[in-house]
């Protein structure tokens, strides 16, 4: 019987930072990850990490920018805490060995980013996530913990409102295993693969968020889905906001620098929801390029700057789109990129289930509110990863031992094993493809009541068909067909929550744009959506937003 004080699920930046904090608090810690930790999606983050460390910048400005970026849905007390932690967090990562880009005076280089009053995004060329992930993983190698590599979470064990551990699939052996834990930290990242056109990795399937939802955890603000303005036209591969931060410009099919119509002061460096809507509007109104996209131009920055500061995206454009950004514009169009919503937590990562914590993109504190600013997500993983790990360790130090009933494992896994013994039924990839098409069509950047209802009808029909999902692959070893089945089920649950929340929210705020309710409605909707699983699907309630110093204003960039 495997047992640990703290089990961290997910080994990206948030999970690793949580594990480090729990180890430092003296706990016996295990990390469960369906990928090798260095393969985590944190490594795909390009542009940078925000910290107001420049002389002309201030923490207060970072707080204000984040509050405004959130369209006043972010909790201001948590945002204040978050921004104050930024400087020490970045310094700590430098001390752990991160190789950051440097200014001529040897300090950390900073670049401008969307929605930010000052250049405060610290970076490592355009592979900041990779640089942080390497340094944190290598630092974590100096402390003791247990790694369960390529184990996928299949269930949380929750009894009497308290977590007792997890059930996971050991992907190499094909066995389901129970791990007892006094506390569990879910840091499983996002669920962007609910959409087909996404910058997210194939593995971003919301395993932890869905398992928490199934176990009774409250999800928060799930309807707020960020679409990144600049993804490669054909493949949706991310082109960092840093490209615009370095001076890249957007042009429509008529050669116009159209952002002047949408954000007259900061143009391309408006926040992501604004730029994405602008691109979609240009295309819908017939000013895009044939095929429906716009151009991101970098040529004027010169070969040297492009190849040194934007090295990875240069490679991406060359190898995935056959475009050389030094000499040609890059065809781009928005793609799903980030989930503002997730498992509802407080600023210490605690959920409504005792012993269950969450951090990173899986969680919703909320600091991003209705729209996240670029450069704040890497910071979020590290700040709240550390807090959640420390809080889980503190809880574990006084919690009773977990109660794992080994005899129950057979019953728990029976429905999953049944997938493999069916002789008819549908392959999970069929259902996944239809879900992705549905979400892109009915719950995209612009939404309305009729679309959302139709989307919901279709997702519920898919959930019905999922009851008859079939796993053809009979092998025990590395059965991708089986993990596909789990992931598809998770995402169908989460897609439903997104739709129900979006349908109910009859206003436009941040990334949630209702064409039938185009205005922000503070009187009615300045509140968080809380979704709990009920017998008939998600049950919604609402929670107040925390205010400190910033009164809601109209957002102009």
């Amino acid at each position: 019987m495997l047992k640990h004080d703290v089990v961290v699920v997910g080994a990206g930046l948030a999970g690793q930072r949580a594990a480090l904090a729990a180890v430092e608090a003296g706990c016996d810690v295990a990390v469960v990850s369906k990928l090798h930790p260095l393969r985590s999606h944190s490594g795909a983050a390009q542009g940078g990490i925000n910290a107001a460390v420049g002389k002309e910048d201030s923490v207060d400005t970072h707080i204000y920018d984040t509050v405004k970026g959130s369209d006043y849905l972010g909790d201001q007390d948590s945002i204040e805490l978050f921004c104050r932690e930024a400087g020490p967090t970045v310094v700590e990562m430098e001390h752990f060995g991160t190789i950051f880009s440097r200014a001529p005076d040897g300090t950390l280089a900073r670049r401008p980013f969307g929605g930010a009053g000052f250049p405060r995004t610290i970076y490592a060329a355009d592979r900041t996530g990779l640089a942080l992930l390497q340094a944190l993983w290598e630092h974590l190698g100096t402390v003791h913990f247990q790694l369960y590599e390529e184990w996928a979470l299949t269930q949380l064990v929750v009894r009497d409102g308290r977590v007792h551990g997890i059930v996971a699939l050991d992907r190499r052996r094909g066995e389901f295993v129970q791990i007892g834990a006094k506390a569990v930290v879910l840091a499983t990242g996002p669920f962007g693969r609910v959409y087909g056109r996404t910058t997210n990795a194939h593995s971003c399937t919301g395993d932890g968020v869905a398992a928490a939802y199934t176990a009774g955890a409250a999800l928060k603000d799930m309807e707020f889905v960020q679409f990144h303005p600049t993804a490669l036209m054909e493949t949706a591969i991310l082109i960092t906001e840093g490209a615009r931060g370095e001076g890249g410009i957007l042009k429509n099919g008529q050669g116009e620098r159209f952002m002047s119509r949408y954000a007259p002061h900061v143009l391309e460096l408006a926040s992501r929801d604004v730029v994405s809507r602008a691109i979609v509007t240009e295309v819908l109104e017939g000013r895009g390029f044939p095929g429906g996209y716009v151009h991101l131009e970098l040529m004027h920055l010169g070969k040297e700057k492009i190849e040194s500061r934007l090295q990875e995206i240069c490679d991406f454009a060359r190898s995935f789109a056959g475009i050389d950004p030094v000499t040609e514009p890059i065809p781009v169009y928005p793609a799903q990129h980030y989930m503002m919503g997730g498992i509802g937590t407080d600023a210490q990562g605690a959920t409504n289930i005792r012993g269950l914590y969450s951090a990173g993109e899986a969680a919703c504190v909320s600091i991003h509110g209705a729209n996240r600013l670029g450069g704040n997500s890497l910071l979020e993983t590290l700040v709240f990863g550390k807090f959640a790990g420390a809080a889980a360790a503190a809880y574990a130090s006084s919690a009773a031992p977990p109660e794992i009933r080994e005899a129950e494992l057979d019953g728990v896994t029976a429905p999953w094993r049944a997938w493999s013994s069916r002789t008819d039924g549908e392959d999970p990839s069929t259902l996944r493809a239809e879900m992705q098409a549905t979400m892109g069509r009915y719950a995209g950047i612009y939404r309305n009541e009729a679309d959302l209802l139709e989307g919901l009808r279709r997702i519920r029909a898919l959930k019905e068909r999922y009851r008859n999902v079939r796993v053809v692959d009979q092998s025990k070893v590395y059965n991708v067909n089986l993990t596909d089945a789990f992931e598809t089920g998770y995402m169908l649950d989460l897609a439903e929550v997104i739709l129900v929340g979006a349908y109910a929210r009859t206003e436009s705020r941040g990334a949630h744009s209702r064409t039938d309710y185009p205005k922000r409605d503070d009187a009615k909707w300045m509140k968080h959506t809380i979704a709990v699983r009920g017998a008939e699907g998600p049950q919604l309630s609402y929670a107040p937003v925390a205010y400190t110093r910033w009164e809601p204003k109209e957002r102009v960039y």
Partner: protein
Amino acid sequence: MTEATVKATFDIYRFDPGHDRAPRYQRYTLDLPPHTPVLTALLKIRAEVDPSLALRYSCRSAICGSCAMQVNSKSRLACETQIGPELARDGRIVIEPMRNQAVLRDLVVEQEPFWRNYDRIRPHLILDPRHPMPEGRENPMTTEEVEQFKETPRCIACAACFSACPAVEADPAFPGPMALAKLYRFVVDPRDQGHQDRLMRIQPDGLWLCLRCHLCTEACPKDVRPSERIRDLKEMAVAVQGGTEHGSKHAVGFKDNIRDRGVLNEMKLVRQTSGLVGVLEQLPQGLHIVRKKREILRAPHRIEGMDEVEKIYEALDRPEEKP
């Protein structure tokens, strides 16, 4: 946008240790646009033809390092290898698991030895309490110091280099290109206090087993150039320790040996590298070579054009003009 497609034939290595006695190749034929990435094609096969094909994949944008495999015998990332050029060159696409790593199933390999080698080089900053980190602020680092890392921070640990490396295949004691490129990254880090110790330890620990074939550099999808960094490590190791290790003595001996006559004196090189005891140890092998190649016993004549050789050495001894 409708696009011309090509008929793409894939021969994919299949092996499930639970069911198959031996590996087999399964053929799949699909119509696809020529710029389709191999990974996209494999996922299409999984979704539409055969869900039992096992492989690792995640980001599909050459940054997570999951999908390294052999595409027409080259170790590549499937996500950034397009089918068009492969079909044009070889007429079909043979997909096999990476080399030098045991197959778990189909295209999924056991990576434990790869990660173990990475851990072995102590991939973290080694600190010295006499040089504490600056309190509350970052270590300053000049642009020149950042440039010393070369392209090593780009490494995504995909193991394509490990798969391509004949030294890894020949000798499990060789840490492999990725681990050595990572070692270089720490040796040149101005924050690291373990430079000398790292360079001393790596010599008996496999540094000199590199064959200098540069297949790792050819395989690397991120242009990390491991073989060039291994060359740098060797130079730094000799500078720190002098030619006292077998491998370094061989390299230094080689250089002095050629300087003498412009051509290798192999008898002398064995002495320089291994000493008299070493010569005796290698006697049986030596006699075997002498039987096949009698002229090895004679010291070679100085070659014509020694002045050119001398010029090369002069250039080598001026470090700032090193090619």
